[in-house]
């Protein structure tokens, strides 16, 4: 479903991705782990081209993401994205946040989009907050709304960029639970995370990134119990 080959990204003089290769199959849950600054988030942001791709190829559903001829807006509808800082639209209510894109991209008639929006809010357990503005929500609630919003366009793949890093510890669980539910429904997910517990429990595969390289990948039990690479060992000894 996603094929990444030789992906490179340069910020000014700093090469943050130095040639990354990996594939993601449909229905897989893949966690990207690694130290800060290793390029995890940049990889994710290259997949829907929030960052321009400086080298290599990224194919999503066989489509070359870096190709300027493709309709990026259509591609992005296939890739739901959830951000560390939620990025809810503060001037819109919860239900308006969730229905903004389906209504304005005419994916659904308004009444239907709202009905679907309520279903999604129910799924993340926030139906009763539909007419509230985001500033009245807790961090965990905001992130659950953000997940519902990302699901509203019916994406095939969900990208999570450190979804729990900005949350108070007691709110991490509720967000992870929603993500687990999604995973169990068979959603293809790529998750940049520091939640090793989640990676161990939910991921089919873990990719370890360090200094712009994909250093090691494998099943979570292999990565966490028997890391082969020195850098992986060193990182895991610090975080586990």
């Amino acid at each position, binding site marked *: 479903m996603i094929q990444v080959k030789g992906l490179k990204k340069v910020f000014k003089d700093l090469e943050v991705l130095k040639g990354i290769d990996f594939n993601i199959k449909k229905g897989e849950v893949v966690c990207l782990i690694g130290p800060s600054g290793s390029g995890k988030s940049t990889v994710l942001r290259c997949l*829907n081209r*929030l960052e321009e791709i400086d080298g290599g190829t990224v194919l999503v559903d066989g489509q070359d993401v870096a190709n300027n001829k493709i309709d990026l*807006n*259509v*591609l*992005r*509808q296939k*890739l*739901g*994205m959830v*951000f560390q*800082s939620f*990025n*809810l*639209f*503060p*001037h819109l209510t919860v239900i308006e946040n969730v229905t*903004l*894109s389906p209504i*304005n*991209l005419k994916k659904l008639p308004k009444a239907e989009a709202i009905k679907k929006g309520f279903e999604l809010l129910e799924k993340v357990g926030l139906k009763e907050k539909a007419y509230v*503005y985001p*500033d009245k929500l807790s961090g965990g609630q905001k992130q659950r709304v*953000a997940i519902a*919003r*990302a699901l*509203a*366009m019916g994406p095939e793949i969900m990208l999570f960029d450190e979804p729990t890093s900005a949350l108070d510890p007691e709110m991490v669980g509720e967000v992870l639970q929603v993500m687990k539910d999604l995973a169990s429904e068979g959603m293809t997910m790529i998750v940049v995370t520091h939640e090793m517990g989640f990676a161990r429990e939910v991921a089919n595969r873990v990719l370890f990134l360090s200094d712009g390289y994909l250093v090691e990948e494998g099943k979570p039990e292999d990565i966490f119990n028997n890391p082969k690479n020195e850098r992986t060992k060193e990182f895991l000894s610090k975080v586990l």
Partner: protein
Amino acid sequence: MDILTLFKQSLPALLSGLYVTLEVAAISLVIATVLGLSFGMLAISRNKILKFVAIVYVDIFRGTPLIVQAFFIYFGLPAALDIKIPAFVAGVLCISLNAGAYMVEIFRAGIMAVDKGQMEASRSLGLPYGKTMKLVILPQAIRNMIPAIINQFIISLKDTSLLSVIGIKELTQSGEIIIASNYRSFETWSFVAIFYFIMIMALTYAARSVERRLKI
């Protein structure tokens, strides 16, 4: 002549001046807002040429005095191009272009102040740039810009008084005409000042109530 009689005598001329002032200001501020938004969008664009166009516009109109702009549009351009521009049109043009230049900066700053995560979130949903601007960025930006916009409206409203130099019979010019016939400088300028003051106070309070209503 007591002040009340004087006021009654000057009132028709003052009111017609007031009307012209409001007319020039209202038309100009609508045009200025459109100019500010349009060139503001150019100013934040990644295209260097578009950006340059916006910068040149802003620099020209911020870099020269309004009164010189008025003379240039009313006397300079017609002389060079051999056309006739009515004073009212020249006045509206002058205030619009001048206020528009300042509004570009207000729009640019207002848009830049919106967290960049908002643009990313909206684009990642598949919303195109234009829709993102209209539905996500501008509604938030404009909310923060209201005090600055109102400030510019007030400045421009007062700037219309300079248009008396090209013979527009706005409020200030009306004052001068009244004084030419009654020689009562102190009272007449007091009336004129009070008229301006009331207009601006009305604008200020209207703005405050809009701002309150838009608060989330």
